[in-house]
């Protein structure tokens, strides 16, 4: 029996016994270490007669592979067993609660403003803003509502001085004035923001939100106004069809003026917009009065167009089924949490306005 065969047989039988990791490593080192039995045989190759060298080398490699594979297999087996044993101990109750998290929310009015802006953005309106504190001129006089005009009674105004020169704006219409004084026509803007009237009950809050719309260009007529609002209301309520009614009304700053109603019905206690035989007033609008254009140095013989004002809070209430206007500003945690929107739910045109 050759040396090689002897080494092989001896170690194969050794490896068949029960060995731990240390013993296996010892065997590995005994065979393949610097002076290991197999390693030494490799060193001998050069001294062997040429006629037998090839066979010797071949036999040696076969034995080396056989022993190495067996050792690796054994080591693997033990490591696997060790991990399995560890896993057995490491089992945890995954039904225990996760680390706590808090969710912030966006107020429904803010969300609605973003929805509105997104819709009007598509048809070329840009967003303008104005201050909450206004002077009497921008809020009334420039808007063709002179002092001592009964139309002023329609607005219960908060004043900041006894002379009634400074006030909290009663509508977003003064932004029209500011925009037109600042730039040159054409104008195509919306102006969302806070508005104030000294009125407070279930359906009135001393502060509420409006969005003003203004489109002034050459040849803009009431048909464009109707088209714009029809588009807006359909998009906003995310319905294919809308029933809309223009009804003559009066605002000092527009002429002809209209109030706009939308059709609705109550089904199973829920309001359905766009169907039914009930009418709901949602906004006021009209063609900008020539006197207003003159006041802002726009020539009414060359330019004309429309303006509208919509109650944002009311739109939000209708769309999201909110009953009480006062609750918008009451900051009740439960209300905010329920009616608020996830901050990642940014209304966009490609994704859709709401989920």
């Amino acid at each position, binding site marked *: 029996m050759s040396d090689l065969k002897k080494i092989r047989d001896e170690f194969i039988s050794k490896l068949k016994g029960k060995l731990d990791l240390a013993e296996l490593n010892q065997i590995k080192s005994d065979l393949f270490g610097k002076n290991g039995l197999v390693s030494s045989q490799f060193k001998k190759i050069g001294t062997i007669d040429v006629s037998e060298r090839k066979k010797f080398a071949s036999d040696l490699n076969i034995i080396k592979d056989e022993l190495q594979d067996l050792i690796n297999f054994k080591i693997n087996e033990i490591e696997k067993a060790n991990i399995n044993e560890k896993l057995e101990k490491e089992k945890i109750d995954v039904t*225990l*609660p996760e*680390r*706590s998290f*808090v969710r*912030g929310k*966006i*107020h429904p009015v*803010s969300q609605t403003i973003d929805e509105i*802006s997104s819709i*009007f953005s*598509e*048809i*070329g309106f*840009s*967003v303008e803003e*104005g*201050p*909450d*504190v*206004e002077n009497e001129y*921008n809020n009334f006089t420039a808007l063709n509502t002179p002092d*001592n005009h*009964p*139309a002023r*009674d329609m607005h219960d105004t*908060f*004043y*900041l001085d006894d002379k009634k020169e*400074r006030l909290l704006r009663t509508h977003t219409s003064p932004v029209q004035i500011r925009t037109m004084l600042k730039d040159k026509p054409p104008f*195509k803007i919306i102006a969302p923001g806070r508005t104030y009237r000294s009125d407070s009950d279930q359906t009135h809050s001393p*502060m509420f939100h409006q969005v003003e719309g203004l489109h002034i260009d050459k*040849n803009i*007529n*009431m*048909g*464009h106004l109707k*088209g*714009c609002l029809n*588009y807006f209301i359909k998009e906003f309520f995310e319905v294919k069809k809308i029933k809309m009614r*223009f*009804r*003559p*009304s*009066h605002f000092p700053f527009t*002429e*002809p*003026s209209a*109030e706009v109603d939308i059709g609705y019905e109550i089904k199973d206690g829920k309001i359905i917009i766009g169907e039914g035989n009930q009418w709901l007033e949602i906004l006021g609008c009209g063609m900008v*009065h*020539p006197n207003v254009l003159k006041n802002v140095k726009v020539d009414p013989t060359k330019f*004309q167009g429309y303006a509208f004002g919509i109650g944002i809070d009311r739109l939000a209430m209708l769309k999201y089924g909110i009953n009480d206007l006062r609750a918008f*500003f*009451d*900051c*009740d*945690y439960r209300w*905010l949490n329920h009616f*608020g929107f996830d901050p*990642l739910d940014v209304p966009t045109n490609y994704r859709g306005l709401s989920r």
Partner: protein
Amino acid sequence: MKITFDWLKDHLKTNLKEKNLLEQLTNIGLEVESVESVSSDNQLFKIAKIIKTEKHPNADRLKVCDVNIGEKELKKVVCGAANASEGLITIYAPPGAIIPKTNIKLETAKIRGVTSYGMLCSESELNLSDKSDGITELSKKYEKNIGKSYFSKSKSNLIDLSITPNRPDCLGVKGIARDLAASGFGKLIVSKERQIKLKTKQTLKVKINKEKGQGCSAFGSCLIKNVKNTESPQWLKDKLISVGQKPISAIVDITNYVMLDINRPLHAYDADKIEKGIIVRNSKSGEEFTALDNKIYKLEKGMCVISDNKGVLGLGGIIGGTRSATEFDTKNILLESAYFNPRSIRNTAKKLNLDTDAKFRFERGIDPLSIETGLKKAASLIQEICGGEVSKIDIQKIESYKTKTINFDVNSFENIVGFRISENEMQRILTDLGFIIKKDKKFLKLTIPSWRPDISQQIDIIEELARISGYEKIKTIDPIKDRSKSTLTQTQRLFHFLQRAIASKGYLETITWSFTDQSYNDHFRENNKEIKIVNPISSGLGVLRNSIFSNLIMYMSKNLDRGFKDLSIFEIGPVFTGSSPGEQKTVVCGLSAGKKSRLSWIDKERNIDLFDAKRDVIQTLSEAGYDSDHFFIDSKTPNYYHPGKSGRIFLDHSKDKVAAYFGEIHPNIINKIDIKTENLIGFEIFLENLKLSRKTLKDQKAKFVVSDFQKSERDFAFVVNKDVEAQELISVISNVNPNLISNIKVFDLYEGQNIPDNQKSIAISITIQSSEKTLKDKDLEKINNSIIEAVENKTGAKIRS
């Protein structure tokens, strides 16, 4: 404006139904506010007489009345009205009746132990007037009607219209009929007035003083002698009751009727109580008179008064006085029909805080040519009902009405409204509305009806034509999806970004009112001006907020009271620095209360602290595109923050404008507000102070530089005086070689054993990496030493060995 279809039919010939009427009214801009069905229910309200009153045995203020309602037995009714007294004729509602004001069905009820069968009604409960103090008092004339229904059997519903302020002509039934007729809803009936003979002269002298600011330009009058003022005939009473008015006496009822029918306010004086003659003049300062509402008014200088030798009789066009009021025994009356200037009326009424039906009409503009018509109509009715001789009509004027005309370009209509109607149709509509048309080559020359003060230019005519033709004819022109200007400005985008960035960190967005409670505001006002609202809704909402904290703390406290312990809320909105337009800033203000990881099985719970708020602010600013490596932070904060536990953030070392504050709310404020929580942390980010980056993301993304050379991490621990801030050490280290040193992190702070009392140990980790080569040990050693040297020299620190 309340009308009935029946009354309309006095002026309108039509076969159409009420349903069509309601639609048409709304379609032409006379909005139907409500329709009250006059059902058989109101027949239950009976004229009744109190026979006896006794004090309620168990209540001082209540009386038990025996009431005659025309039946054999008297009804026992418990009543709390002070004027409920024996002999009073009033209105009784039996159990089962529905009270018009409250819509509550009456039931037999025990009131403090005494059973009350029905109720005696006030005028307000019956929607007859706003009078709610005491039960309705009917005149003796009603005695014969006891047990009869108070309301007549009208089949016509009460239609309440919301008339816009530009349409005074529609404050009369006739005006409404005219509009309806023009729109094709029936035909206007041209009423033939009964001609009466006017023989005698009007002998009472009337004079309008020509003075500056004279509010009366014409004063028409006639004398009616030897009348017998009486109760109105049933038709007149029914008419007034049908629109919710309470009949008083024939003369008063007739003037009211004429006012409601053709919007011509009149006033009847007891001529015998007028001293010599009428003078219409400006009031003198301090003059007083008792008005028909039984209040004494002290006048300012320059109000338009009707007076006689003895003094003020009434405020022209607003309210008459008691001194010359007509009564049942009035024999001779002077009937007034005048024109008062709307501005003058409004000024006076506002100053005296007076609101009357006449004022409402005059301030909107009464038809100046209706003076005579009105007088004749009323005088003829008075003569018919009360008898007497009517004098000739006397009209004093200081100004004549001039008819107004405008040229109307027929093409302008389509240009504004977007649809076309024929010129013939235009002419028909305008004629029906009362315009007189003369055709010119290019224009229609229109004479404006005297009852339309709202019409003065071409656009007004366009509106009339559009309104009467119907808005449903307006075509819908679909909008074009085209955008030439970006929707939001950079600042607006930043606003939206900050809003959603803060919300994404667990804050609930709130919107609170821009005004607040002065006492809360004072905590956060600092040296800012207090901005008072002259007419606040309540004293608790009397000032514009100088900070959002005032409202947030108030509402946080309410939520904590509701039992929520750990809560973060924020608002983005205006705070005010002055009372002029533009003196406002946009602030993102957040407030957190309570603990982190409360009741957690896995994490250790702790109070929320300023570093939570600091993280939220810094993270938000970083997300918004500001480089936090450049931020500079110090501890100078407004006095509503805890002086030792708050800081302010600048975007860079130039310390130009404060980007944000963060920190604990001052314990004094928490104490005073008595808010119950473990800790209260707030922050404020000032939108206008955030410089907008000039670099777009396109530019920024284009540069991408990283180094793949080996990097090494080094730790240092410095012992330094307590007043030296960590930021200073970081700044010194980063300045040693900004190209090589990055990722400077404070990973430990230690005070106590082995460290002197006034000192602390700060451990800092840094990364050293070159973008050009792998640094050798020698290079690293050099940087190490430079760092230690720089920190020791500049901050007085010592490296811990």
